[in-house]
């Protein structure tokens, strides 16, 4: 009996020790090696010091405020108050070694501040409008599509916030109380979801099981991992939204619809009959197929997807899909779901401040107008409060230091999970293994090809990326530090690069693992891995911009070889390209004649046009991720190869952070320019990479392109005598 008691006590002791250690992220990391210990403690100490200063600054500012006198001021005050509580929780979490909770509390404060700031009325809002009277049906379809594209960012933000709440709530912060306080003043997650639900962007009843939002029945973990169909997005908005999301989001939506046709939500009550649902389902799947076609997927592959998912109308799709306007489908969907419903949604989207449609249009239009007029508005980070200073990175900081620093903070940064909307792998969703404080060297969160995940390839990749011998990597524990993240070394480098520049790490990772959670993308990747994919499928993966860190890991060594050789690229080490995301090990285009003509034709280019080219002669390295992004953005193959050429492989390999950053920015439609501008003066890296991105560069060139395009035409109106300016106030054109 005594022996049994001792045994039970021992078991209890071990269980307690194990569980407390598992929750203590800092201790777990410290246990890896001296390098890990010093690095994680430096980060903890820095956050502690900075948080202390932020708390003091905030308290000083709040003291200067007068008593609030209206609802807007009240809402802002409540948001500030909740931010103060969350800041204190950052310190509490750090004291208990829960670094993921500390970092996610900081992220949650950002989200709370964002909602509060966006709730303040601006003059860019419409008071009232009668859409049906003033807009034609075609124009309403166009507005629905634009609205869908503009609200995506908002849904991604809310899913991210739900993931943050999930982490800090589990760590002990009373988030229900926090959100209830905020929602009472219209600035909590419930208020945002309710507004989005009224527009048809989400469906509160589908998400929570209750007609009205209640925080108690809101499962943050589940919501954060839902795809566009699961959140209950109206089919009329889905078309525009999917156009803005990666291809994997569209394939994932089809997978969900094929499993549960009744998932389609927000139909007009009078139209909910089995025939109406079947009709809307057919139109919706057809519309999704068109979106996939616009993204660069061939009719052949779309038809295969339809067959795999047993979606009849998609499996029988014809070439006509490539020439039809996607708005015609949308118009039919609008008719089947009820014109009244749609017009109400759009009216609300343009009149409700918190939906942010007009703000998003204005922000995008500003970017274009600034680039076209070559005027840049200085929006760099100006921290008025000088008590919190940005640390200067030494100029000669090593790539190894950057990789280790990024790996130490990878789990805390990603603990809220990657949003379900982009179809990430399961381990990276909210509540997945990424939010586990425990260390597990065998986790493979990005579904890297099994052969590579279990071999020495990870260590060898780290060696090549850092120029350090494998045995030294093991001595320092670098392999374990990186393995602990469950991510590929290339992805860790991307996190390092984004994090050091103040960019949104969540967005950078989301973009690089998008689609890995979709069975269709997994099947396509598998066929490229085992060599059974036809040339069309290979071209489709490239043309749709789906080549990213995730897919390169998923297709594995053989898949990278097959993918690269199809483009005439010979890599020095295909496993290295797979695990580094092409940051190192990318090979050269030996000769453009080696490019598979079938694939070139599939990309819409006459192969005879690329028999000789400057690129082929100069033996440059090619970044597959950047190339795929460029082609999907409308570039032809030669321009895409040029824009993704690595001009000096030696130099690039010496600075993986710059390489990772330029890759993220080139393919980064998910990274907003606002984020990039914020980072401008806190970077230790090449400023030109930080202050400009692919989009801005394209636009900067656009103004001159436009002028030269006009100038080349002798009939251009500006070249005509007696040209009269148009009145900028009215926009009235001169009379012909």
């Amino acid at each position, binding site marked *: 009996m005594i022996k049994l008691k001792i045994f039970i006590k021992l078991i209890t002791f071990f269980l307690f020790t194990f569980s407390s250690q598992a929750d203590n992220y800092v201790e777990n990391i410290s246990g890896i090696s001296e390098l890990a210990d010093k690095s994680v403690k430096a980060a903890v100490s820095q956050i502690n010091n900075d948080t202390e200063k932020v708390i003091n600054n905030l308290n000083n500012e709040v003291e200067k405020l007068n008593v609030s006198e209206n609802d807007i001021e009240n809402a802002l005050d409540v948001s500030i108050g909740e931010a103060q509580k969350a800041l204190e929780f950052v310190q509490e979490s750090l004291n208990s070694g829960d670094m993921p909770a500390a970092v996610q509390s900081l992220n949650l404060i950002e989200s709370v501040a964002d909602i509060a700031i966006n709730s303040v009325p601006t003059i860019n809002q419409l008071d009232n409008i009668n859409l049906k009277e003033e807009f034609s049906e075609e124009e309403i379809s166009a507005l629905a599509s634009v609205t869908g594209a503009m609200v995506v960012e908002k849904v991604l933000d809310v899913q991210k916030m739900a993931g943050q709440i999930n982490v800090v709530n589990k760590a002990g912060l009373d988030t229900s109380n926090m959100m209830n306080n905020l929602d009472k003043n219209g600035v909590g997650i419930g208020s945002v979801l309710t507004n989005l639900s009224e527009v048809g962007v989400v469906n509160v009843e589908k998400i929570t099981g209750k007609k009205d939002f209640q925080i108690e029945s809101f499962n943050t973990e589940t919501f954060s991992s839902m795809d566009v169909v699961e959140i209950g997005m109206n089919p009329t908005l889905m078309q525009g939204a999917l156009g803005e999301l990666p291809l994997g989001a569209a394939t994932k939506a089809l997978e969900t619809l094929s499993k549960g046709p009744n998932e389609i939500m927000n139909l007009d009550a009078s139209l909910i009959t089995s025939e109406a649902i079947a009709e809307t389902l057919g139109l919706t799947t057809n519309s999704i197929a068109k979106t996939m076609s616009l993204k660069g997927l061939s009719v052949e592959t779309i038809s295969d997807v339809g067959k795999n998912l047993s979606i009849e109308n998609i499996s029988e799709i014809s070439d006509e899909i490539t020439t039809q306007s996607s708005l015609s489908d949308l118009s039919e969907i609008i008719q089947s779901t009820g014109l009244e419903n749609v017009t109400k949604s759009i009216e609300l989207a343009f009149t409700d401040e918190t939906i942010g449609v007009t703000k998003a249009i204005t922000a995008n239009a500003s970017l274009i107008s600034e680039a076209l007029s070559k005027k840049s508005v200085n929006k760099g980070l100006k921290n008025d409060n000088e008590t919190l200073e940005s640390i200067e990175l030494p100029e000669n900081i090593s790539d190894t230091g950057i990789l280790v620093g990024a790996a130490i903070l990878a789990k805390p940064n990603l603990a809220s999970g990657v949003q379900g909307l982009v179809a990430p792998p399961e381990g990276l969703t909210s509540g997945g293994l990424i939010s586990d404080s425990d260390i597990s060297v065998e986790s493979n969160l990005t579904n890297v090809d099994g052969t590579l995940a279990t071999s020495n390839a990870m260590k060898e990749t780290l060696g090549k990326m850092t120029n350090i011998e494998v045995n030294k990597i093991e001595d320092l524990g670098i392999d374990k530090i990186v393995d602990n993240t469950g991510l590929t070394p290339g992805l860790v480098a991307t996190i390092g690069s984004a994090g050091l520049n103040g960019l949104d790490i969540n967005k950078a990772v989301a973009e690089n693992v998008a689609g890995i959670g979709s069975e269709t993308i997994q099947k396509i990747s598998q066929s490229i891995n085992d060599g059974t994919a036809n040339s069309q499928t290979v071209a489709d993966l490239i043309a749709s911009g789906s080549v990213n860190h995730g897919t390169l890991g998923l297709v594995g060594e053989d898949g990278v070889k097959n993918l690269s050789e199809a483009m005439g690229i010979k890599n020095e080490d295909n496993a290295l390209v797979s695990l580094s995301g092409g940051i190192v090990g990318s090979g050269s285009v030996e000769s453009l004649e080696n490019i598979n003509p079938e694939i070139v034709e599939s990309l819409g280019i006459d192969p005879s046009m690329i028999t000789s080219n400057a690129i082929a002669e100069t033996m440059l390295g090619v970044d597959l991720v950047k190339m795929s992004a460029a082609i999907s953005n409308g570039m032809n193959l030669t321009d895409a190869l040029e824009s993704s050429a690595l001009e000096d492989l030696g130099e690039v390999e010496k600075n993986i952070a710059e390489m990772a950053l330029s890759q993220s920015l080139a393919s980064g439609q998910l990274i907003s320019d606002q984020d990039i501008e914020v980072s401008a003066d806190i970077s230790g890296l090449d400023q030109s990479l930080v202050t400009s991105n692919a989009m801005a560069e394209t636009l900067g060139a656009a103004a001159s392109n436009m002028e030269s395009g006009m100038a080349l035409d002798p009939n251009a109106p500006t070249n005509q005598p007696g040209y009269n300016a*148009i009145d900028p106030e009215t926009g009235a054109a001169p009379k012909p």
Partner: protein
Amino acid sequence: MPMNKFLYYIILSFIIVINITPNLKATEKKCFYCKKYKYLKDWPVEERPIAFVYEEIVFPKDMFDDKALKNRHILIKRAEKKVAHRFVKAKGQLNKYQHLMIKDSAYFEVMFNEKLNKKLAKVESLESLKKARDAIRQSLKISPNASTSEAIYKFWATGKMMTKIYNQNKKKKKKNEEEIIKRVKILSDLKKQIIITKTNAQKAATIEADKTIND
């Protein structure tokens, strides 16, 4: 003396090479299809990417008057004048009149599409304009692969909506009160400080790792 002459010729050749090289680079065409086809008539329709194929459009109501709709020549002139004014002459005011920029982008689409119907249109010019078209489409997140009619309707309808907002609000000129602005500034500053805190944490971990590895 012959030595001096030799040196003279060496230096002269050097100067000529230096002057010619950039010119050669400058004249190198920054286009792709133009290297094979000079004019559109040389480029078979079946070999063109879909973005370079002319599209018949049913225009949004009120985009063109009856006169323009009946006469293609007038329609093209109208579109070109709108584009020339908005994006070339008045480009300095694009940010101020965003609603007009969005609406007039529909005319840019028309202008580009109509050029695809001209046999003597230069392919080089078309490629250049397509780059600009793709960039402008990003303002409403319109895919470079989307049809012209889809882009026209999106620009036109959104421009119309944004013009309504502009007209409705230009009379208001209402500004938020000082106390609201103070609170918004506190929250904005807080956000900035949090970004610095997170960036500093990563920098601290990186610097410490670098130091330990080098020790």
